[in-house]
C-alpha cells in the first residue's frame, strides 16, 4: 500500500504542477481500510497534449451504439474520415434472421456525405438531403441514422430538420444524432446522445411482444466477436425469450419493441444506463446490471435473474444450465489455469469491461492490479449511489438530459413486469440489486490501482514499475506494451477472436490468454549475442548501410 503510494508519487514527479494536481484525482489506490470508495475524478476533460486513449462523442454515438443496428443505414455527415474510420472496425457481428433478411443488413457498408470545402462554406444540408434521397431510392432501408461530425455544429447544418423532412418525404424514420466529436469529454457524450435519440424516437413505437413466459432485453451488449449470441444461447437454454440484444445484432424492428420486455439486463453500464433508467421512468421496466464475462459471474447473473421472476421452474432450469455448462468447460479451464494462475494484469477497456474481466480473470487464478476506463463516470467506479453528488460541468451540461415522465398508457410498476406482488418485489430488491450498479471498486483488492483516463505516460511508468504479466487494452496500447516486453491482448476486438462472454467465451478467452502468455518468442527477445555480453552497438552504427 505504501509501496504503491510511493510508486505513484514517483510517477507524478514528471508532471507539471497543474497536470499533477489534475491527474492525482483520477487515480485511487484501493484500501480495505476505507469504508467507501474514495472519490475518483472521471468524465472530466483530458488535459490538452496528454496522450489519452479517449475517443469522441461521434465514436461513442455512431461507433458504439448506433452502427450495430443492422437494418438501418447510418450516414456520417461530415468530411470523409469519421465515417471511414468507423467502418467495419468494431466487430459488431450481425446476421440475417426472421425479422431481417440478408438484403436489409448494411453492416459492411460505409455512408458518408464526404463534405468538401464548399459544403463547409455554404452548408451541407442539401447534400445530406440528396444523399438520403439517393440512398432510399437505391437501398430501400427500413430507417436511416444521421450522425454529425465536428464541423456540422459549427457551420449550423440543421440535421434535425433534414431528418424530419426526409422522414416525411420517404415514409421511413430518419433520425438525427447531433454527436459532434467535440461534445462532452469522451465517447461517453455520444452514448448519451444516442440513448436519447433512440429513446425518444424508436423505443415504444412497436407493439409486438415476442412470445414467451419471461421476455427480456440485453442492453449494452454489442455482440463483439459474437458475445451476444453466446449470451442468447445461454439465456434461451435457461428459459428466457430474448426480445432484443441492444444494439449488437439488433434490428430497428426489435428496438421499437424494446418496452415490451419484462426485464432489462444491462451489460455495458456506461453506454446504455440512460436507456435503462429512462425506460424505468417511462415504462416502469426494472433493470438488472448483469455480467456474463466470467464463469462465476455468469452463474451469479443467471441466478439473480431467476430470482427476479420467482419462478421455480426457471430457477431449476437455470441451475441445470449452470451445472451442465460449468461441468463441460471446467476440465479445459483447469488446464489453462495452470498457465494463468498467479499472473497479474492491467485492464483498460470499455464501459464496464475492465470490471467484468476481473471476474473472468479470477476464474483463471489471475488478478487485475491496475484497472481503469477511458470514458467512465464516477458511478462506474464508485457505484450509482454517487450519481446525485456528481456535479455537472460545462462539458456535461451540453448533453441534454431528457426529463421523461411515466407513459400514461404503458407505464406499469416494476412488480407487475416481474409478475410479483409488491411485497415480493420489495423483498426481491433486498436480495437482488435491481436498478443499481455498484461499480468496479468493490471487486478490487487492497493496494490495487483504479485509474481514470490512463494516459501513455502513466501506462509506461506503471508497466516499468509493476511489470504486469499481461495487459488488456486497446489496439493503440497493445504494441506499446509489447515493445516493453509485456504481452497484451486487445480487448475491444479480442484480437479478432471470440466470443469471450458466457461459458464458451470463457474457454476461448482462457485459450487465447494462455497462448499469449506462452508465445515462445517472449523468451527469445534478447538476442544470443547480448545474452553473452552487452554489445557496444554504437560502434556498429552506420557500418552496414548496404
Amino acid at each position: 500500500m505504501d509501496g504503491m503510494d510511493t510508486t505513484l508519487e514517483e510517477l507524478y514527479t514528471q508532471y507539471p504542477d497543474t497536470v499533477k494536481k489534475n491527474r492525482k484525482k483520477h487515480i485511487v489506490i484501493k484500501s480495505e481500510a476505507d469504508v467507501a470508495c474514495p472519490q475518483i475524478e472521471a468524465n472530466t476533460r483530458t488535459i490538452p497534449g496528454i496522450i489519452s486513449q479517449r475517443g469522441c462523442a461521434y465514436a461513442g454515438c455512431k461507433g458504439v451504439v448506433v452502427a450495430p443496428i443492422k437494418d438501418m443505414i447510418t450516414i456520417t455527415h461530415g468530411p470523409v474520415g469519421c465515417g471511414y474510420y468507423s467502418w467495419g472496425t468494431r466487430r459488431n457481428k450481425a446476421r440475417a434472421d426472421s425479422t431481417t433478411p440478408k438484403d436489409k443488413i448494411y453492416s459492411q457498408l460505409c455512408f458518408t456525405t464526404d463534405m468538401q470545402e464548399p459544403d463547409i462554406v455554404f452548408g451541407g444540408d442539401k447534400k445530406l438531403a440528396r444523399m438520403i434521397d439517393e440512398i432510399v431510392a437505391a437501398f430501400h432501408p427500413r430507417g436511416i441514422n444521421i450522425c454529425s461530425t465536428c464541423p456540422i455544429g459549427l457551420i449550423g447544418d440543421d440535421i434535425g430538420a433534414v431528418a424530419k423532412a426526409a422522414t416525411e418525404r420517404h415514409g421511413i424514420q430518419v433520425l438525427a444524432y447531433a454527436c459532434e466529436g467535440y461534445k462532452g469529454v469522451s465517447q461517453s457524450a455520444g452514448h448519451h446522445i444516442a440513448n436519447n435519440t433512440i429513446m425518444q424516437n424508436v423505443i415504444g413505437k412497436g407493439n409486438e411482444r415476442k412470445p414467451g413466459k419471461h421476455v427480456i432485453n440485453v442492453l449494452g451488449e454489442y455482440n463483439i466477436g459474437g458475445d451476444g449470441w453466446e449470451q442468447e444461447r445461454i439465456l434461451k437454454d435457461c428459459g428466457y425469450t430474448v426480445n432484443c440484444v441492444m444494439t449488437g445484432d439488433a434490428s430497428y424492428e426489435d428496438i421499437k419493441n424494446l418496452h415490451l420486455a419484462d426485464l432489462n439486463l444491462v451489460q455495458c453500464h456506461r453506454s446504455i444506463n440512460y436507456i435503462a433508467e429512462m425506460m424505468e421512468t417511462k415504462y416502469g421496466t426494472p433493470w438488472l446490471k448483469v455480467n456474463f464475462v466470467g464463469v462465476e459471474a455468469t452463474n451469479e447473473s443467471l441466478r439473480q435473474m431467476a430470482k427476479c421472476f420467482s419462478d421455480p421452474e426457471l430457477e431449476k432450469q437455470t441451475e441445470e444450465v449452470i451445472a451442465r455448462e460449468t461441468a463441460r468447460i471446467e476440465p479445459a479451464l483447469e488446464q489453462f489455469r495452470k498457465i494463468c494462475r498467479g499472473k497479474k494484469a492491467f485492464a483498460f477497456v470499455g464501459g464496464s469491461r475492465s470490471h467484468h474481466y476481473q471476474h473472468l480473470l479470477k476464474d483463471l487464478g489471475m488478478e487485475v492490479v491496475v484497472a481503469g476506463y477511458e470514458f467512465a463516470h464516477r458511478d462506474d467506479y464508485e457505484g450509482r449511489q454517487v450519481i446525485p453528488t456528481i456535479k455537472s460541468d460545462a462539458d456535461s451540461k451540453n448533453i441534454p438530459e431528457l426529463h421523461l415522465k411515466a407513459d400514461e398508457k404503458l407505464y406499469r410498476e416494476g412488480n407487475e413486469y416481474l409478475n410479483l406482488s409488491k411485497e415480493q418485489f420489495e423483498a426481491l430488491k433486498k436480495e437482488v440489486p435491481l436498478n443499481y450498479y455498484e461499480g468496479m471498486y468493490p471487486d478490487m483488492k487492497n493496494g490495487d490501482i483504479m485509474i481514470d483516463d490512463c494516459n501513455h505516460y502513466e501506462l509506461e511508468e506503471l508497466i516499468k514499475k509493476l511489470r504486469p504479466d499481461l495487459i488488456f487494452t486497446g489496439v493503440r496500447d497493445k504494441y506499446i506494451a509489447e515493445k516493453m516486453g509485456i504481452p497484451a491482448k486487445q480487448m475491444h476486438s479480442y484480437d479478432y477472436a471470440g466470443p469471450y462472454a458466457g461459458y464458451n467465451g470463457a474457454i476461448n478467452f482462457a485459450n487465447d490468454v494462455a497462448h499469449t502468455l506462452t508465445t515462445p518468442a517472449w523468451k527469445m527477445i534478447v538476442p544470443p549475442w547480448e545474452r553473452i555480453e552487452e554489445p557496444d552497438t554504437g560502434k556498429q552504427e552506420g557500418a552496414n548501410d548496404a
Partner: protein
Amino acid sequence: MLECVPEGKTEHTTGKINPAKTCQPIGAMYASLGIHGCLPHSHGSQGCCAYHRMHLTRHFRDQVLAASSSFTEGASVFGGASNLKTSIKNIFKIYNPDIIAVHTTCLSETIGDDIPNIIKQSEIPEGKIVIHTNTPSYVGSHITGFSNMCKSMVAYLAEAQGETKKEQVNVIPGFVNPGDMREIRRIVTALGVKLVMFPDTSGVLDAPLTSKYQMYPEGGTTIAEIRDSGNSEVTLALGAFASNAAADLLQEKCGVTGIPLKLPIGLKATDDFIMAVKDWFGADIPKEIAIERGQVIDTLIDTHFHYQGKTVAIFGDPDHVIAMTEFVITMGMVPKYVLTGTPGKEFEATVTKMLDEAGITGSRVKAEGDLFELHEWIREEKVDLMIGTTYGKYIARTEDIPLVRFGFPILDRAVHPLMPVVGYRGCLRLIEQISNAFLERRDRDALDEDFELVL
C-alpha cells in the same frame, strides 16, 4: 455477402458509399512519424487523434504515438489557441520529443485557428521545435495530408547554406511502408549516392522488439538531415500526389532541383528512379542492382502465362495506383478499372495516357471515386483480379474475385509493412503475389482431372 447492394446502375452522385480515401490529418500524422524524435499532434477533438492512431496501428501493427489538443465545446466556440499552447507545454515536459508536428483537423480549420501565431506564443524549450501543417479534412485526402506535412517539413526546416550544393540526393518517398523506405535507402546507397530521405518511417513503424522500450525509436529522418535537404543538388519526388509539393517548395526555397517521378513500384518506374540517380550523379549501376533487374525480366518472361491477358481492377491511393497500373501493363495484363478516392484530374490524365500508349481500350479510370462505384462496374463486367486495399475484400468475396492486397491500409494481413514492393525486389514480390493469386484460384477451381502437379 453484400446482398443489400442494389442490382443494376443506381443514381449515386452525392457523398461516398464505401470510400476509397480518408481524411488529411492521418496522412500528416504518418508523415510526422517519419521524423526522428517527433511527436505528431492533432489540433482538434481527441477523437480524430484516437481514430488515426488506431488506423495506423492496425496497418503497421506497431506503436503510433500522437497527442491531441482535446477540444471540448468551449474550445470549438472560442478557438483552440489555449488548448494548443497547453499541449505544447505539457508535451515537452512530459513526453520530451525533439519536435512536435502539429496538424489541424476539420474542427480547428472550420474555426480558423491561426496555428503559426499560436505556436509563436507557445512555450517551446530551448532546442526544441514545433512545426505545423494545415490539413482540413474536407479537402483532398490522407495523401494530401501527407503531402502537406512533407511540404511543411521543408517550409520549417530545410535550409540552403549558400549557393553550392552537396553531392547528395533528397528523396521524398511518398506514403509508402517503412519496408519500402528501407529498400529505397538500400538502392540509393548501393548506387553510391548520399541520401536524405524524408519522411522515413523505417525504424519507427517497423521497429524491432528488443529488450528496451523507446518512445521515440531509432528510426526517422533527423531534423539535421531535413535541414540539410536544402543543400542537396536534387530532390526526387516519388509520387506526384504525395511528394511533388514538398519538392517544389524545396526548389523554390532552397534552389534544389526537383524531379517528379512515379513511386518506384514496377519495372519501368524503378528504372526511372534508378536512372534519375544515375543521370544526375553519374552513378555506376552496381552489379547487384543489375542482377536484380535481370531477375525481374527473367521472372516476367517465365511467368507471363500465369497472368497475361487477365483483367484487373486497381484501387487505392493515387501514386500507388498509377505505379501499379504501369506495372500491370508491363506484365501484359489489362487494367480494366482504375480508381482512386483522392481527387485529382491528373490521376485520370496520367492513367489514361498509359492505357492509350499501351493500346488498351475499354477501361474505366476515375479519381475521387468510391468502392460502391467500383463494385457496380465489376458487376457490369467482371475482372479476373483485384489489386488494392483490405476494403476490397467485401467485393472480392461477393463477386468471387481474388484480391492481391496492396497499398494502404491492409488491416487483415500481417508482415506486409516490412516487405518492400518498391524497386526490383519489390517487383518480384508483386509478381509472386499476382501469380500465386491466379494459381491458387486455378487449383481451387480445377476439376479433379484438371488439378495438376506442375503449373
